């Protein structure tokens, strides 16, 4: 008697789970429809604005190449190697912080890291490297090694009331499980290309969002104290996740739920 009840219950639970996954994982046709939307990515307009902002504040691609001490031809490869250590800043920086420096050098007050203008300009700058493979070098120097190590640590650090870390959802154990219809992405998998497709247009927010800003959204929803943009830990996280996409082709802007 006891045993049969257990079996009945197990079957009931199993059928519930199966039903949930049948109904709530997206079909291939649906996924294809969302993929097609890339052809018309509203972020293209924002990237166009970013190009105008770079022109006005840094002297366009030529001004940026000069600031980075490379030729304009070498600019895409240079951009594809970010985040990287820069002697001028004495630290590892992402494109946004590098651009703050470039604005200063051109006599302009830098945009804040969280400003719409900075999102647009840094997204445009990353799009200059479209078609290039991500070429971050975490062994370039001890600063990069430290940033990577800090990022790796931060990724695994359990925090907040629920004791969650990035790993809770993005470890090999969790990857592929469904979180409200969405497969949890493997941040290093070729189909995710995480760092290569951020900045992206977030459809739920109707806004251009950078990788660091996305990390913040994740932290907020998982009830973790939000790490500031551009902080050592945040840049470390970007370095860590970027290393996972190393070699993948940059395609900016992405289009995400």
């Amino acid at each position: 008697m006891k045993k049969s009840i257990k079996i009945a219950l197990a079957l009931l639970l199993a059928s519930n789970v199966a039903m949930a996954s049948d109904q709530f994982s997206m079909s291939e046709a649906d996924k294809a429809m969302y993929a097609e939307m890339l052809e018309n990515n509203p972020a293209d307009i924002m990237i166009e604005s970013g190009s105008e902002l770079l022109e006005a504040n840094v002297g366009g691609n030529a001004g940026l190449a000069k600031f980075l001490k490379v030729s304009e031809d070498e600019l895409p490869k240079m951009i594809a190697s970010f985040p990287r250590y820069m002697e001028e800043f004495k630290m590892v920086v992402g494109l946004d912080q590098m651009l703050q420096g470039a604005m200063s050098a051109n006599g302009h007050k830098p945009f804040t890291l969280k400003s719409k203008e900075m999102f647009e300009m840094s997204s445009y700058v990353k799009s200059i490297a479209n078609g290039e493979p991500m070429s971050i070098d975490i062994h370039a120097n001890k600063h990069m090694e430290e940033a990577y190590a800090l990022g790796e640590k931060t990724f695994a650090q359990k925090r907040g009331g629920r004791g969650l870390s990035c790993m809770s959802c993005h470890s090999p154990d969790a990857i592929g499980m469904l979180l409200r219809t969405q497969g949890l992405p493997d941040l290093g998998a070729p189909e995710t290309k995480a760092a290569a497709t951020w900045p992206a247009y977030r459809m739920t927010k109707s806004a251009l969002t950078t990788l660091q800003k996305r990390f913040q959204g994740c932290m907020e929803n998982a009830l973790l104290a939000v790490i500031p943009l551009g902080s050592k830990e945040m840049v470390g996280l970007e370095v860590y996740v970027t290393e996972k996409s190393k070699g993948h082709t940059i395609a900016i802007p992405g289009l995400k739920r």
Partner: protein
Amino acid sequence: MSKRKAIIKIKPNKYANGEVVKVNLMVMHPMETGMRKDKETKATIPAHYINNVKFVYNGKVITTMNVWESLSTNPVFTTYMKIDGEGELSVTFTDNTGEVNEKSIKITPKG
């Protein structure tokens, strides 16, 4: 005329006379429904949406649209048109506040 940001894209990039091409229009617009509340002030955000779009190709109206607030923020409109000579495709879009914008693209058929 105000200058709301918009992009018109013709696909494929190269096309010949007589060919039917895809026309993509994207506009930066909040498309407010008039039903959302401001999180802080709790005041209702007034409706603000594109209500009309008109496609004119070399002086001829080829497509018109009545638009409502149910279209997504930063809306996308994809239609088709038959290439019929060199010239211009001009798109005029107005919103419910009376704002009028125009965006155009050169049409240059090859061969």
